[in-house]
């Protein structure tokens, strides 16, 4: 070891050397390491014997790049050049990486001759790392602020803009640099300034808050913004300025306005609707209703109804039905025109009609029922009147017909004295014409009943065969005259149905008389009856003229008569099939047919057992 210092100096130096918080390496003029302090070991893990004597060229604690830099700097420093402290990467004995700040000064002897360098290395790894992290963070934040979908706006204590991100500038229609240095108040109208002054006061008091604000854009238009503002204070609590994160809610605001308007409209429609509209929860508890509901049920205020169960507004006898319908609505989503007897506040009953639907949330889950109720007293009254009219008309029309029929009958039978052949012939004409008129009147009355909706189904135990036989009996004369063959193929002896006798009569009288009427002499009419699971199928086939293919789609229309039977002497007004189909539909029956011109027609009639 080369002695650089005198003993006394040496002792002093040694203690400073060892106590120094920094790592110290002593190099001679050739760059050989001649001494290191304990920090070098603490820091890099190399023992003195591993380093002392080694040249800086081969220092094991430097990586390749650091070696080159260290040598260069050594060469410059050793010749007296001043080099500011510099950073260097170090490698520990365990190949860990550290960063050190290196500062070297010359060691001279008494003659000012340079005899070496004292190199002090401070560990700045931590500091470096946190600086890096800080830089990285800053970069991230800068990016974040620049890319943010919200505007970021910084003002100083005098409300002068010190920073805006691109989004903020975009919201107000400026370029970022145009906004810098401008007072906050230059981005709003006078009214805004007044409001803003208050906000700034609150910021100075250290209050953080969220509020909306209307700014003026560069082009003079307005922008609605939602601001999240916080004051910036120094450690002592002095106000330095404020930061705002700003979202443009102009569109949202416009949408809110539109939504409000549409809600308002909807509310108006409901409130002024002449029909009672109520919403209930899924249990039927009334949540909301309009004035019409209040009036309909004879209440004086909405609050008397809200909270009640809707079922309470329905007469006792119909409540079961109402609950059933509610379940149906829940499953099917909709209920149309259910008729109930409804209740007024005082218990008075009135007929009503209710339609309801399920209201769902955005996920499709049912949340409410909405129901529209109407008072149908007037309609019921009209229906009643219509029905009475039909009854009266039926009575008034038929009475003179009966009288004419009966008196002609008496004359024909010679009850008023003997008549000659000629007189008998004439009376027979009157009698037949009257009979035809009776049939026509019956037909028209049935049609008017169906069309007025007053046709009443009256189920009883009906034997189909009896019904068919009675229709055939009425036709027996014509069957005999035309020499028609009637074939009956019944799968059972009796077919008892719970159905309407008069409907069965109408259907079979019409179909059989058609079959007989539209089949030429010596033809055949075949009647088949078969029992199915829940219905009976009747087939009536003839070997008649058939229906032209081009007209088959119209045969159930009113007053339809096929082209090929006109002028064949067959009478008829074209109502039979129309009425047969109409009355069948009243009991859930069906009718269809197959037909070929010149070969014949088969009608199929499906009648429910009950």
């Amino acid at each position, binding site marked *: 070891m080369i002695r650089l210092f005198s003993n006394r100096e040496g002792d002093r130096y040694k203690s400073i050397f060892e106590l120094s918080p920094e790592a110290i390496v002593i190099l001679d003029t050739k760059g050989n390491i001649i001494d290191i302090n304990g920090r070098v070991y603490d820091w890099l893990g190399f023992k003195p014997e591993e380093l002392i004597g080694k040249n800086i060229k081969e220092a094991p604690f430097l990586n390749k790049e650091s070696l080159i830099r260290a040598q260069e700097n050594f060469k410059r420093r050793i010749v007296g050049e001043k080099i500011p402290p510099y950073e260097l990467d170090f490698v520990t004995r365990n190949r860990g990486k550290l960063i050190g700040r290196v500062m070297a000064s010359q060691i001279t002897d008494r003659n000012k001759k340079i005899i070496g360098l004292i190199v002090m290395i401070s560990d700045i790894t931590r500091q470096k790392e946190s600086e890096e992290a800080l830089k990285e963070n800053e970069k991230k934040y800068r990016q974040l602020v620049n890319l943010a979908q919200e505007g970021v706006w910084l003002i100083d204590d005098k409300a002068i803009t010190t920073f805006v991100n691109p989004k903020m500038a975009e919201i107000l229609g400026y370029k970022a640099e145009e906004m810098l240095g401008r007072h906050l108040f230059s981005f709003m109208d006078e009214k805004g300034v007044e409001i803003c002054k208050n906000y700034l006061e609150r910021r100075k008091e250290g209050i953080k808050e969220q509020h909306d604000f209307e700014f003026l854009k560069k082009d003079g238009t307005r922008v609605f913004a939602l601001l999240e503002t916080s004051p910036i204070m120094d450690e002592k609590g002095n106000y330095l300025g404020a930061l705002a994160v700003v979202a443009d809610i102009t569109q949202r605001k416009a949408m809110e306005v539109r939504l409000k308007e549409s809600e308002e409209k909807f509310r108006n429609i409901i409130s002024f609707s002449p029909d009672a509209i109520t919403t209930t929860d899924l249990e039927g508890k009334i949540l909301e209703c309009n004035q019409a509901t209040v009036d309909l049920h004879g209440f004086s205020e909405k609050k008397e109804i809200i909270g009640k169960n809707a079922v309470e507004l329905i007469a006792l006898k119909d409540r079961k039905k109402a609950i059933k319908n509610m379940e149906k609505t829940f499953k099917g989503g909709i209920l149309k025109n259910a008729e109930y007897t409804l209740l007024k506040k005082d218990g008075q009953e009135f007929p009503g009609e209710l339609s309801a639907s399920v209201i769902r949330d955005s996920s499709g889950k049912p949340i409410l029922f909405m129901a529209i109720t109407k008072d149908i007293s007037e309609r019921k009254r009209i229906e009643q009147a219509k029905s009475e009219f039909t009854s009266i008309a039926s009575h008034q029309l038929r009475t003179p017909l009966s*009288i004419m029929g009966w008196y002609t009958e008496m004359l024909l039978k010679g009850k008023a004295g003997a008549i000659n052949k000629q007189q008998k012939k004439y009376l027979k004409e009157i009698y037949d014409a009257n009979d035809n008129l009776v049939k026509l009147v019956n037909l028209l009355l049935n049609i008017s009943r169906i069309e007025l909706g007053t046709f009443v189904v009256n189920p009883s135990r009906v034997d189909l065969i009896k019904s068919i036989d009675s229709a055939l009996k009425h036709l027996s004369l014509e069957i005999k005259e035309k020499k028609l063959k009637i074939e009956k193929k019944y799968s059972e002896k009796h077919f008892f149905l719970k159905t309407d006798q008069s409907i069965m009569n109408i259907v079979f009288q019409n179909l059989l008389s058609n079959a007989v009427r539209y089949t030429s002499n010596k033809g055949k009419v075949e009647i088949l009856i078969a029992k199915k699971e829940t219905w009976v199928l009747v087939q009536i086939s003839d070997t008649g003229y058939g229906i032209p293919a081009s007209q088959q789609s119209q045969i159930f229309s009113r007053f339809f008569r096929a082209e090929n039977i006109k002028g064949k002497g067959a009478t008829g007004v074209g109502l039979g099939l129309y009425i047969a189909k109409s009355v069948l539909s009243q009991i859930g029956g069906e009718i269809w047919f197959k037909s070929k011109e010149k070969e014949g027609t088969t009608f199929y009639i499906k009648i429910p057992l009950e």
Partner: protein
Amino acid sequence: MIKNKDSNKKILIAEDERAMLRALTDTFENEGFNVFGAEDGEKGLKIAFKEHPDVILIDLLMPKMDGISMLKKIREDEWGKDVPVIILTNLSDVDKIAETVENGISHYLVKTEWSLEEIVKKVKKLLKE
């Protein structure tokens, strides 16, 4: 005039339409019935209780007392419980008819659909039962 085995039978016909009442009266008299005619329900009921006819024809729509009320009154009477009654009507109002069925009529018939001959046959058949 042919007298037959029904010559001793009494028939009450309550019918407000004179022409009809006459046609029915003439017809049944011709058949040898002892016919009592009434133009309204009240009169009909009076005769019914006085004469105890063997069979009664009642029109549904009549002044003073309608056919249903008349029938009800007859059925309430000890004698009238089982007397055969035919309701004559030109209504085909099924509700009304259903009501008459409930009140225990024997038959109902729609006038335009029945000839006098058929009505006579029906009455004779009822009397035999």
